[in-house]
């Protein structure tokens, strides 16, 4: 007699079965334009894609996931990469298979390793050697408990309290990384072309390699709701072009029924943020 939990597991497995027709995609002679656009659609830009409901779970972090987050942030403090590079080029632009096949933080560390090799901070042979050395040290596949031992000496630790909602900040207890972030833009700030209330259309530029302008807003018209800050455009920041011009960013408000033809509620809205160059005045 199976336990209720086992019955549930079998039900879950069965309820996820879907038929599929496989057609080999080995270098077709031609690719129609619509399919081309679908192929280059940046993997991580998922807003509006139809999908069945799923159980929303609270997942606890694994220790390695927490360490990945910390390692990737610290690489930023020391100027190895900025978050724009990490988010899009390294952790997201990795093809559909890895994007959906890896856990969330796995894509981060995959990207960090790729970045170190791409930028010649380490050679691929060094990375391979280090992975092999760690496997050997940890005795992968053998029974083991607890944490992965590491040869990194963390030293003494102290507790700080900044997130309790009551404690004051504790300036001076942190490491000095200099007066400006490594990703500080140096280019000239361009004047803002739009003001609150202006009607604007989001351009539909080619999505080649990288974008932070979601597919679902392209060619859509909205209203400037706020001016936020001047900064690099994402396409420049993602390739470390810190001396490129800085542009005004805007919060643009759209009517949901304009974005989605089938949307049934008249007054609902959606807001998102774009730099000047992605917007044009709408009639």
């Amino acid at each position: 007699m199976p336990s209720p939990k086992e019955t549930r597991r079998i039900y879950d497995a069965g309820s996820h079965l879907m038929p599929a027709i496989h057609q080999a995609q080995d270098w077709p002679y031609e690719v129609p334009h619509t399919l081309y656009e679908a192929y280059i659609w940046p993997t991580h830009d998922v807003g509006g894609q139809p999908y069945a409901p799923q159980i929303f779970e609270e997942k606890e972090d694994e220790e390695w996931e927490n360490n990945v987050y910390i390692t990737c942030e610290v690489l930023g403090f020391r100027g190895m990469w900025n978050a724009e590079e990490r988010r899009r080029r390294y952790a997201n632009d990795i093809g559909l298979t890895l994007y959906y096949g890896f856990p969330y933080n796995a894509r981060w560390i995959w990207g960090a390793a790729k970045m170190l090799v791409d930028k010649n901070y380490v050679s691929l042979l060094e990375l391979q050697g280090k992975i092999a050395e760690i496997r050997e040290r940890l005795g992968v596949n053998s029974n083991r408990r607890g944490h992965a031992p590491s040869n990194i000496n963390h030293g003494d630790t102290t507790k700080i309290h900044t997130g309790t909602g009551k404690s004051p900040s504790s300036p001076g207890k942190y490491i000095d990384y200099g007066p400006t972030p490594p990703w500080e833009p140096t280019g000239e700030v361009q004047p803002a072309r739009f003001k609150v209330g202006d009607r604007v259309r989001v351009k539909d530029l080619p999505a080649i390699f990288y974008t932070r302008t979601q597919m679902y807003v392209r060619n859509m018209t909205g209203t400037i709701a706020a001016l936020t800050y001047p900064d690099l455009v994402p396409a420049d920041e993602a390739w470390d072009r810190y001396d490129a011009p800085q542009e005004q960013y805007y919060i643009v408000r759209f009517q949901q029924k304009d974005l989605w033809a089938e949307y049934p509620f008249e007054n609902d809205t959606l807001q998102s943020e774009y730099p000047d160059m992605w917007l044009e005045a709408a009639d």
Partner: protein
Amino acid sequence: MADKHKDGDHHHSGDHGHDHAAAPMVDEISDFEILELAVRELAIEKGLFTAEDHRAFSEWNDARSPAAGSRMVARAWTDPAYKARVFDDPLNASKEVGVDWSEPSGFGTTSDYMHLTVLEDTPTLHHVIVCTLCSCYPRPILGHSPYWYRAPNYRRRIVRWPREVLAEFGLIVPPEVELRVEDSNAKSRFMVLPVRPEGTEGWTEDQLAEIVTRDTMIGIAMPKPGRTTDGPRPIHRASRPVHSGGRPTEAPK
């Protein structure tokens, strides 16, 4: 095959260092754990960053939680002058509840930047936040995002079927209320200032902060008297959870 995620296999809370005897056996070390160690060790050996960098950021990270956000909302509900500062100068309003967005580097974190906008709900307007492109979230003031917030399902559906998704979380937004989705796709970070519920007249800031849970500041739930936790929602326990200090090990309140 052993089910290493079976509920109730183990329980962990707070500081118990490396004494984690109740944890399930792990057959194999994750390839990603090995990759993280490889990247970290190589980076330290090459002098790209120091072990101290990693440790110091880990401490900052351990101190994140939604508590500061709860405090900010509760204070805004009770102090009109503070509420005005929340909208006019949110970084200084954050400092008043203990969060300095410039920490721990002097210029903020790599991922979070220093552009907070607080979205005010009214009886006729309700906000919900998402990042359809990745997982942008106001970590300094709300802690780490819940996993479902980062996962594709929520990101796909909330911008197009927001009322349906909110209903799945148990929140029915009346049709006459404008529902506004904030898709956090650039460097601004957002949190929701919900409407102070009826039945809280005369409450202290501490009492009010209790009902301002993480989910109410994402916008997938509404605060109300007696509701001091989010969920109930299934918990997927870690095989080898975070051991460093004060990260929440249970579903956040």
